[in-house]
């Protein structure tokens, strides 16, 4: 198939369906729609990787509130009514066997777990009797504040550079049919923007005995 035809197909599909705004960012209309007061619950990205500094540990990062300008970042905060929950399946059925529940209140972040959830699925209660790790939320311009729990978990919360990179502007032009290919060099549409990030480092020994896990992030409100 000629590329021109391909582009036409893409345009047709996208116009008929979704309008793409940004790769992972702001694609939860329920929380980012017009007049929303709960932008802080929008998850931009999830990262899961072995600590480059310690191969006995895994690091999970939840990005929220994407596309923050430096000025907007100064005033950004995590909503107090929101649970940021890391879900971990270690039995291969895509149902969470462990959760790490993160709350941010009174300028502090707390991470409970990893712990077996009270119930899997779309509603959660806090496992407040689980081992808890706490840190002050790091302010913009301050060095990263890290809390360490008795189980070896470490936690961080605060504004960070958005690690995501993508020439979403050019992609949008391709989708719109005004361009037929990416440009060289591309331009990172996320350069210079920040997210509100929660990072949790977990000893692998707390994640079960399977070599393969599946991970996803959820935001839940009350």
């Amino acid at each position, binding site marked *: 198939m000629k590329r021109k035809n391909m582009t036409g197909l893409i345009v047709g599909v996208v116009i008929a369906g979704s*309008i*793409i705004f940004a790769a992972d960012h702001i*694609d939860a209309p329920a929380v980012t729609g017009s007049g929303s007061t709960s932008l802080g619950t929008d998850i931009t990205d999830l990262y899961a990787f072995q600590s480059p500094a310690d191969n006995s540990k895994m690091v999970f990062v939840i990005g929220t509130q994407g596309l923050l300008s430096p000025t907007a970042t100064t005033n950004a905060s995590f909503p107090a009514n929101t649970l940021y929950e890391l879900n971990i399946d270690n039995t291969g059925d895509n149902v969470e066997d462990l959760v790490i529940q993160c709350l941010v209140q009174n300028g502090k972040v707390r991470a409970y777990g990893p712990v077996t959830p009270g119930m899997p699925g*779309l509603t959660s209660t806090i496992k407040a009797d689980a081992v808890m790790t706490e840190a002050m939320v790091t302010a913009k311009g301050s060095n990263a504040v890290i809390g360490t729990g008795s189980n070896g978990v470490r936690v961080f919360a605060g504004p960070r550079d958005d690690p995501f990179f993508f020439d979403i502007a050019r992609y949008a032009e391709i989708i719109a049919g005004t361009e037929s290919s990416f440009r060289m060099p591309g331009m990172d549409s996320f350069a210079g923007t920040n997210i509100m990030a929660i990072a949790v480092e977990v000893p692998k020994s707390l994640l079960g005995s399977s070599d393969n896990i599946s991970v996803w992030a959820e935001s839940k409100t009350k």
Partner: protein
Amino acid sequence: MNTKNILTGVLIASLSIAFISCDKNDDDATDNFDTSGTYTQVDQKARPGVATVFIGANRKNEFNTTTPSMMSASFKTDIASKLTAFGYTQNALGQNTDQFASLLATDVLNVKLTGTTTFFDGTNVLTGRALADDVIDTELLLIFGGPTGASNPGLTSDNVDANDKAFMNSFPFLASPH
């Protein structure tokens, strides 16, 4: 945040004080931390871009509130249709439309607890997602690159290969904000 709080936080970090919750409700009077109530899901995320590229605006909220174990049944058909509309037949992993749609529909990050963790590094595939991974190029290649990855060369890389700031070499690894 005032200076005192910052200093307190630094002390917490440097002394590695472990905070263990003993009270079941954990809202002791000193910090008034509220752990009560039932939380209901509003957003969900794992692989980058899946919801944005493949899920129509009319089903995004549904996608964000469907548990992963139910996602394939609910969304595989939509994703397969979109792949077909993109001209997709097979990707460089050898997956046909049905197989690739099935993988994409269950929106979880597959992670290995031993060895390299990466979305794709030329050798390892879907063993995690590291901060520096060029996930968009990987996805463009798998969607538009055809069986050999050589199809549609103008659409298989956005030519942005790295973040705009260097990552830290210690936890939390993320770069400081702009």
